[in-house]
């Protein structure tokens, strides 16, 4: 009934400069990942702005078989509960989001639960008398996850009671969440404008490797950049609106030098970002109205500090990646060894002009949508790798770039923007989770 892999096998699979192909295609490795990584790490569930009112809930899967509910109770506390009736195990809610008025009610036999998951009522309860059933036993509640914490509205949950507290786990990468929120003149962000879900027919790790893989855009996205440039070239001089629309695509053609300059910063537990001082999105226009609001809120210096901290993708390994300068996030939801879904959500910076939200949504639509002009080519190369890695024509995936040349700091590691530091960072964490070295 169980074919998990041994701890000893793990160390052979992840070496200093190469990974074994089985990481991507082996079902038992996937199952083990679901237990030891996704079943232990802090996983992003949702944002409190999605559930502003009492009883509002949204749902998510922490692992493919761990559906949970994020809900706000009558005292405005938020809870992350397993979406499972304590009676005979029925999933309590089926929709992505909604509002629970009064109490949860299981659709099978009508057990009801408060917003915090505690049992409220069992219909015809007298049948349990003198049977050894203890109605007050906690096992009769909808179960909370092992731990949940909220940081500036970002709700994370873990299935491990041993996980360190959320801030410790985030480490230095927390500055990216701070930066995102600080980009609001009010210091607060809210999710708005719905969600895109993009089904990927490949292993979940491909997208994490791709986020800060700066060697790929020049190749994978060459066609769309050429197309945009070709179109721009065809425009009459006065077509400024068209030109500026088309320019949203150009950063994907940034040179290797540009990318090298942006640098990569890695943290414990696999988190990392590229950029910092600069990123490929550093040149997007700053709207006057926004600059004014920011300066009013923070003063010139602090404003400049905030806006000049420019990261491209920040990964909170393994589930959440943030584009601070764009104000969107992507969330990874694994499904099978060769299937996962990416959710793209947009943030509104409170107090910022609507035009910024419009740009965020435009970016999501053109770049991250399954019907965009960037995501599908990334997906295509993942598919190619998913198929190619089954082949006996090779055993390994290599990641030597700038190996041995990273700089260690007390709380982080930094390296060149075209290095494989992002790979080294995440696979160090992968190995530690999988071999049980981090926490149980």
């Amino acid at each position, binding site marked *: 009934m169980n074919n998990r892999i041994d701890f000893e096998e793990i160390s052979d699979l992840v070496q200093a400069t190469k990974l074994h192909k089985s990481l991507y295609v082996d079902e038992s490795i996937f199952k083990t990942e679901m237990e030891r990584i996704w079943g232990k790490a802090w996983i992003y569930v949702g944002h409190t702005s999605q559930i502003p009112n009492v009883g509002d809930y949204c749902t998510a899967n922490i692992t493919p078989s761990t559906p949970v509910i994020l809900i706000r109770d009558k005292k405005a506390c938020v809870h992350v509960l397993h979406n499972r009736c304590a009676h005979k195990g029925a999933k309590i809610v089926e929709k992505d989001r909604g509002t629970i008025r009064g109490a949860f009610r299981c659709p099978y036999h009508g057990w009801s639960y408060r917003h915090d998951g505690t049992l409220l009522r069992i219909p015809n309860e007298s049948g349990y008398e003198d049977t050894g059933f203890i109605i007050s036993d906690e096992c009769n509640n909808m179960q909370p996850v092992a731990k949940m914490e909220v940081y500036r509205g970002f709700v994370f949950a873990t299935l491990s009671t041993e996980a360190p507290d959320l801030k410790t786990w985030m480490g230095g990468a927390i500055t990216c969440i701070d930066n995102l929120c600080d980009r609001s003149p009010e210091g607060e962000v809210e999710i708005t404008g*719905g969600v895109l*879900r993009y*089904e990927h*027919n490949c292993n979940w790790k491909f997208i994490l490797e791709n986020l800060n893989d700066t060697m790929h855009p020049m190749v994978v996205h060459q*066609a*769309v950049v050429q197309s945009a440039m070709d179109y721009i070239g065809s425009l009459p001089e006065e077509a400024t609106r068209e030109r500026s*629309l088309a320019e949203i695509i150009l950063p994907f053609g940034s040179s290797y030098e540009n990318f090298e300059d942006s640098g990569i910063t890695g943290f414990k537990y696999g988190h990392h970002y590229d950029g910092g001082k600069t990123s490929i999105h550093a040149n997007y226009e700053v709207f006057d109205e926004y600059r004014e609001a920011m300066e009013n809120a923070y003063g010139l210096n602090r404003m400049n500090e905030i806006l000049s901290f420019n990261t491209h993708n920040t990964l909170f390994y393994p589930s959440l990646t943030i584009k601070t300068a764009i104000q969107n996030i992507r969330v990874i939801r694994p499904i099978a060894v060769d299937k996962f879904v990416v959710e*793209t959500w947009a943030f509104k910076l409170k107090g910022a002009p609507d035009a910024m939200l419009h740009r965020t949504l435009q970016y999501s639509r053109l770049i991250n*949508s399954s019907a965009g002009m960037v995501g599908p080519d990334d997906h295509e190369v993942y598919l190619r790798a998913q198929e190619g890695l089954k082949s006996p024509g090779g055993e390994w995936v290599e990641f030597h770039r700038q190996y041995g040349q990273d700089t260690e700091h007390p709380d982080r590691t930094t390296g060149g923007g075209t290095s494989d530091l992002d790979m080294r960072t995440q696979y160090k964490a992968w190995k530690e989770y999988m071999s049980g070295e981090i926490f149980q």
Partner: protein
Amino acid sequence: MSVDLEETIRKFLYLEAELLDRADLEKWIDLYTDDGTYWMPAAEGQSDPMNHISHIYDDRTMMEIRRRYLANPRTSSAEVPVRTSHIIGNFRNLEKTKKNHVEIRSNFQVSMWYRNSLRFYAGEYVHQLKEADGGLLIKHKRVNLINPEAAQRSITIYI
């Protein structure tokens, strides 16, 4: 509204579908007005393309880029061709919306062959058309999938 006009519109939409099926986006774009837009919302009954995410919301600028992009030999997601067949039916609710403008609804089913598998898209079209020079142009095309909120696989065509 005359039966003749509706028949003309049907033919026009069949032509539009044929150009999509033939992947002739150059001619397809020419069916749109200069300020024409193509919208595939990402939510049932979505009211707004600006403040809510969509799968696609292209003006002619984006159509022009996308057309070049899909035809570019370096577009790896297009190395294997996408083949489609559109069926449009259940034309209804033809109405004049303003001078020289009409709107019509129809249902569609698109069968797609891509990367060795068959896929299906279904839903409702809303076409806003403009009469010009005795012919028709598309002012706005809205594609209401039956599952706009669903997780979608890569969509490398206009539907």
